[in-house]
C-alpha cells in the first residue's frame, strides 16, 4: 500500500550534501565555525520544524521546540562521533526534546487554553470557500490532532517519524534508541489506537 508521505523524503533531503563535504562541514562546526554550523542547521531545519510542528499544540510551542533542538544540537555537537548519520542524530535530539514536551504537556494539560487549539485550525479558507466544507475540514483536523495527542509519548513519536517524516523503521529504532521490533510494536499500537479513535470518520472506507 503506497504511503501518503510528504513528497520530500526527510532523510534524503538532509543527506543531500555530498558525503565528504557534509563531513567537513560537521568537523568545521565542531571546531567552532559558526558559518559551518549555520549551514548545517539550515540543511536540517525543515525536518526539525516539521517534527516540532507535528508535536506542538500551538505555533509558539513549535518554534520553541525547534529552537531548543538546535540549541541542544549546538551544545552537543562536540560529542558527535560520526557513529550514525548526522540527520539521525539530529532527529534523536529533536525526539528527546519532543518527548520532554509531550510529557510536560500531559502533566500540565489543564493549563492549555482553548485559544491554543484554535491557533492550529485553518482560518484562511484552505478548505475552499464553502463554509460548511471548511467547518467540516476544521473539525476533522481538530479530531485528528486530539487523537494524536492521546497517544502515549513514544507511540506518538514513532508514528510522527513514520507517517509524517517518512523515516524507515531502522532509522526510527535508531532515533528512539530501541530495537526495530519495539519500534514496530509502538507503530502498531499507535495506528490501532488512531483507527479506534477516528473510526467513525471512516465508515464505508472513505470520508
Amino acid at each position, binding site marked *: *500500500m503506497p504511503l501518503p508521505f*510528504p513528497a520530500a523524503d526527510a532523510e534524503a533531503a538532509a543527506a543531500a550534501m555530498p558525503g565528504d563535504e557534509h563531513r567537513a562541514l560537521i568537523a568545521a562546526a565542531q*571546531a*567552532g565555525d*559558526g*558559518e559551518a554550523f*549555520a549551514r548545517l542547521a*539550515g540543511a536540517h*531545519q*525543515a525536518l526539525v*520544524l*516539521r517534527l516540532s510542528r507535528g508535536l506542538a499544540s500551538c*505555533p*509558539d510551542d*513549535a*518554534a*520553541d521546540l*525547534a*529552537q*531548543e533542538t*538546535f*540549541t541542544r544540537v*549546538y*551544545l552537543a555537537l562536540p560529542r558527535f562521533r560520526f557513529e550514525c548519520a548526522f540527520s539521525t542524530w539530529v532527529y534523536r535530539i529533536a525526539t528527546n526534546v519532543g518527548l520532554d514536551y509531550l510529557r510536560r504537556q500531559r502533566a*500540565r*494539560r*489543564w*493549563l492549555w*487554553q*482553548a*485559544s491554543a*487549539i484554535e491557533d492550529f*485550525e*485553518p482560518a*484562511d479558507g*484552505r478548505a475552499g470557500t464553502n463554509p460548511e466544507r471548511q467547518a467540516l475540514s*476544521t473539525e*476533522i*483536523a481538530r*479530531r*485528528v*490532532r*486530539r487523537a494524536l495527542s492521546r497517544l502515549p509519548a513514544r507511540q506518538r513519536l514513532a508514528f510522527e517519524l513514520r*507517517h*509524517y517524516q517518512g523515516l524507515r*523503521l531502522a532509522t526510527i529504532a535508531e532515533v528512539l534508541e530501541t530495537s526495530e521490533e519495539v519500534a*514496530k510494536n509502538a*507503530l*502498531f499500537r499507535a*495506528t490501532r489506537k488512531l*483507527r479506534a*479513535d*477516528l*473510526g*467513525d*470518520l*471512516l465508515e464505508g*472506507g*472513505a*470520508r
Partner: protein
Amino acid sequence: MTCRDARNALILDMEDLLDGAAKAALDAHCAACAACAQEGARLRALATLLTEARAAESGAPARVAVAWRLPRAPRPLWRAAWTAAALAVAVGAGFGGGWWVHASRAAAAAPGQLQVESIEASGMPEIGVRYATLQQASLRAPVASLQAQRLLLEAIEHPANAGMRLEAMRLLAPLGTAVADAPALRRALIEALRDDPNPGVRLRALEGLQPWVAQPAPDPALVAALAQAAGRDPNPGVQAQAVSVLASAPGSAALLRRLGDETRDASVRWSCAAALHQQGDAIPADWLTASAASGGNE
C-alpha cells in the same frame, strides 16, 4: 491466515511495514474476505485522513529563515551556551518568533502568571531563565456551543479542583450523546470513573455514562470500567451505583452473575442480586447461602 491475523497485518500494512511474503498472504486473504478488504479500505482512508488533516493545518510547507548569531571563533562553552540559546528562528507560514520573542511577550504578563521552569547561571553575569506563562481568557456562550463544550471537557480533567470537575460534568452530562465530541466525553467520564480520587465525581461520572450504557452495543471499555467500579471501587455507594448502571446494559445478566460470584463483598453481591431480580432473572441459590452463613457481612 485468519481474519484476526489479517486485521493485525492490515494495521502494519497501513504504514508499509509488511515484508513481501506477509503482504502476499494478506492480499490473498483480502481477495477472498470482503470484511477484511473493507477494513483495508478503511485503513487506507485513515492514512489519507491523517495526512490531509495535517496538511490542512500546516498549509504550504513552512518557509524558514534562520538568523544564526554565532561566534566566528571558538569560544568557551560557558559563553557559547547562552549565545546558542539566543538563536532566533524566524519561521514563515504561521510560526511566530523564537524563544526570546515569546519570553519578552510573556514578561509583560502580571506577576503570578509565570511559572519558572529552569535557571541557567553558568554564564554569569548573563543568565538564562526559561518559563511558561498562563494567559487568562474568558468565554460566555451557551453550553451547546462547541467552544464551551471543549472547555468543559478540559475542566472534567482538572487535576486540582474536584468542584470544577463536578460542575463540568453536571453541565455536560445531560447533553450525553448530543455533545459535539461525544466519544471524548465518554472517554473522559470513563477515566473519571476509573481514576478520580473524589467519590462524588465518580458518582457523577456514572450518572453521565448512563446514556452510553443503554445503547444496543455499549463500548467494551465502558462495560469493563463499570465492572471494575462495581467490584473494586473503595466507596460502597459508588459500587452500588455502578452495579445499578451496569444492569441497564443489554445482556448484563451474565456479567452481574459473574460479579456476584467473584466478589467477597456481601453488599456488592446483594446489589447484583437486586439488579438480577429487577431484570426478572433468577438469583443463584449459593449467593443466599453464602450471605446467610456470613450473616450478610463478609
